[in-house]
């Protein structure tokens, strides 16, 4: 292997194109990665960022163009095995971990040989501890990955790359699932990698991150390379302009309509699991026309709050009412029919079926409505029309409504979820990290839609780790700490210091 000196060329992609059928996901893109540099890849949802990196990692074969790794043309038979052998590592946009296997098993798996009948588990374990210590991870090797939090899973992915001995690191939207604190730590770690001479590629929708970190930024739009900008040569506004075809209006406004009746009323709701209070006597109200924010460090009861309202978890005490009617033990289906919509945190676990087409995903849960089916027979024509309408309205970048959902880019999958939930004219919308994976234009659009929904009389519960989002959209923000609502803050009277201490639980007596 060539010794990687800082500044030397690690990878050169020349004129890469990739077509899926007649659709060109990448069109003549050229990028050079260097050791000791961070390269950011930005672009709208569906611009082709993940596709480009999947080509480099050997998951997809390019239709045209050539790749040079360490100065040598890799030819046309480039597989993931080869990529790993050439010290390339990748963290995918959607984690690729085996939930049922232990941390150690996941990390060593890619380096194992088929002929190795007696692996030296003891050595692997030692190497694992060394690496974790070196980078300050605290993971137990024997925990099942399925039991880890999202932040820890991210660490497993990183360790997996490092364990393989990767020197060229590709991270596809690594911060999308992280809390702001976690993502700051990750970004710091990337700088550390850069200083150690690694070549790093980061795909992100947070332009400020790209500008802060990257030595070069490549902008993709509709599969074409618009520009590659060196550090200090552009501002956020410049890059944003390159990303989108037309100017977007990012001006946010808060719902101005007068608040009406109480839609959601939670009264002393508690949720105990194995003696741990995940929710502890939560009382809150969401009124018509109001966006109520929920803040807190991830893991303080946000997911449980959403799940108890929609009925995925049943409460141990207290009551939840919609328009004064107690929900009790009504099913998820009945609750959804009763006007509750939910954009869950983890779209793959709770919101979409990848193997089904986009149209089916758009009507999922509403398939029994008269416009979609009669006496159990689906009305294909109406469904197709509805899907077409939603695709246009929410700007889902796809060739047709019959495409399987898993072939959409991550952000476009999220748009399908949002489109379905908002189209049902809900009375209460639970939006948990609604902008996860969306580019900034789509984010602005979705925020605007939430505001419109509130103005039209719906109640919105916005659970988010993005404080700017909370302050911009909601009138009041409830702070959760250890399952308790430790305070409510008026967005107009926002004081970062006070808010921070609430989130840290400093004022939780």
């Amino acid at each position: 292997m060539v010794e990687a000196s800082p500044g030397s060329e690690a990878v050169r992609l020349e004129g890469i194109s990739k077509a899926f059928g007649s659709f060109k996901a990448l069109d003549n893109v050229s990028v050079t990665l260097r050791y000791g540099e961070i390269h950011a890849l930005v672009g709208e949802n569906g611009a082709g960022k993940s596709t480009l990196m999947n080509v480099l990692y050997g998951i997809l074969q390019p239709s045209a163009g050539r790749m040079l790794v360490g100065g040598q043309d890799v030819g046309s038979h480039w597989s993931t095995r080869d990529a790993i052998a050439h010290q390339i590592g990748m963290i995918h946009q959607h984690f690729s971990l085996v939930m049922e296997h232990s941390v150690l098993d996941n990390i060593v798996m890619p380096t194992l040989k088929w002929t190795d009948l007696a692996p030296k588990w003891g050595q692997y374990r030692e190497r694992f501890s060394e690496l974790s210590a070196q980078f300050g991870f605290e993971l137990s090797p024997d925990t099942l990955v399925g039991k880890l939090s999202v932040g820890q899973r991210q660490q497993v992915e990183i360790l997996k790359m490092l364990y393989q001995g990767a020197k060229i690191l590709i991270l596809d939207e690594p911060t999308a699932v992280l809390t702001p604190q976690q993502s700051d730590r990750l970004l710091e770690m990337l700088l550390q990698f850069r200083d150690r001479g690694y070549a790093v590629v980061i795909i992100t929708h947070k332009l400020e991150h790209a500008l802060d970190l990257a030595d070069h930024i490549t902008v993709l739009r509709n599969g074409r390379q618009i520009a590659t900008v060196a550090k200090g040569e552009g501002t956020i506004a410049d890059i944003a302009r390159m990303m989108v075809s037309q100017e977007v209006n990012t001006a946010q406004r808060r719902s101005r309509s007068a608040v009406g009746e109480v839609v959601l009323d939670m009264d002393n709701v508690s949720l105990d699991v194995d003696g741990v209070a995940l929710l502890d006597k939560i009382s809150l109200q969401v009124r018509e026309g109001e966006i109520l924010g929920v803040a807190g460090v991830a893991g303080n009861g946000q997911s449980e709050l959403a799940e108890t309202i929609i009925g995925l978890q049943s409460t141990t005490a207290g009551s939840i009412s919609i328009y004064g009617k107690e929900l009790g033990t009504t099913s998820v289906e009945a609750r959804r029919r009763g006007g509750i919509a939910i954009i869950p945190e983890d779209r793959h676990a709770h919101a979409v079926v990848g193997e089904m087409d986009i149209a089916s995903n758009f009507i999922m849960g509403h398939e029994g409505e008269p416009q979609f089916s009669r006496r159990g027979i689906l009305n294909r024509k109406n469904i197709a029309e509805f899907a077409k309408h939603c695709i246009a309205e929410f700007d889902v970048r796809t060739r047709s409504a019959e495409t399987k959902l898993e072939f959409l880019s991550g952000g476009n999958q999220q748009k399908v979820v949002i489109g379905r939930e908002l189209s049902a004219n809900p009375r209460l919308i639970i939006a948990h990290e609604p902008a996860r994976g969306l580019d900034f234009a789509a984010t602005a659009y979705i925020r605007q839609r939430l505001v419109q929904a509130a103005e039209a009389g719906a109640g919105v519960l916005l659970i988010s780790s993005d404080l700017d989002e909370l302050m911009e959209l909601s009138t009041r923000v409830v702070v959760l700490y250890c399952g308790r609502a430790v305070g409510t803050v008026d967005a107009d009277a926002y004081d970062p210091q006070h808010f921070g201490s609430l989130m840290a639980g400093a004022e939780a007596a």
Partner: protein
Amino acid sequence: MIFDLEFVLSALRIATPLMIVALGVLIAERAGVLFLGAEGVMLCGALFGILGAVYVGDPWMGVVWGLSAGVVMGLVTAVLTVWLPTDQVVMGLAMNIAAIGLTSFIFRIAADDLQQMSPPMGWSAPGALSENPIAAFLFAVPPLAWLAVILYFVVWYMLFRSAPGLLLRSVGQNVKAARSAGINVVLVRTVALALAGGLAGLGGAALTVGWVRSFADDITAGRGFIALAAVYFGRWYPRWTLFGCLLFGLGEALALRTQVLGGNAHFYLMIPYLLTVGVLAFAERGCAPREVGKPYEQL
């Protein structure tokens, strides 16, 4: 007395084919392929086992024939469900029905040669040991039962201690993770199905060559499915799978014994199947490897 050594031996004879087939199913499903065709593959192994034993005149050659027929059937399954890929449930059912037709057809052609029983399989204790009851018992245990026990340890070690085992299980749990690790999913599943088919064929041969010593139409009578059930009962772990097979063996041995009590023989033969349903219904629900039943399409 109902429970004596002969009873234990009979239970073992019955359980042996199941154990071997179940190990095959276990491997296939750990690699993420639903092996519903196990019944059909077993049936083919049963017929070719007898053919080999009769034509070559050596029961061990029968075992080899059965195993080879199974490998071929396993590869056919791989072509249909992994390479194409088609629906794993439909293909499994189709294989089972096709196998009944195919074996009955070949059986008719070879009927004249299959009149007599195949040569017996087994070994007798050397003179000095035959007096010792323990040694006599150990030598009375069918050779293929010993093979099944050895295979169990081999499969367990390979799946849960060796590198290829972890790679194979990763393919069964998450193809995305496997692909991202550079594993060739299609190749792994093809090999897994060849192994699984081989074991299912071997199990079929164990039924005919190792026990009944003759062939009849649909002689497996759902045993392939019982093996499948044993894997589910065992939650995709070899140990509990083996236990499930033994339980069924005991049930059927009991049914055979109690037939002497009189009454309708079919009633007693129902017992092991009822037992299987009962055990499955009450067994704690395990989690199948995640990719089982999902066709894998390469991008």
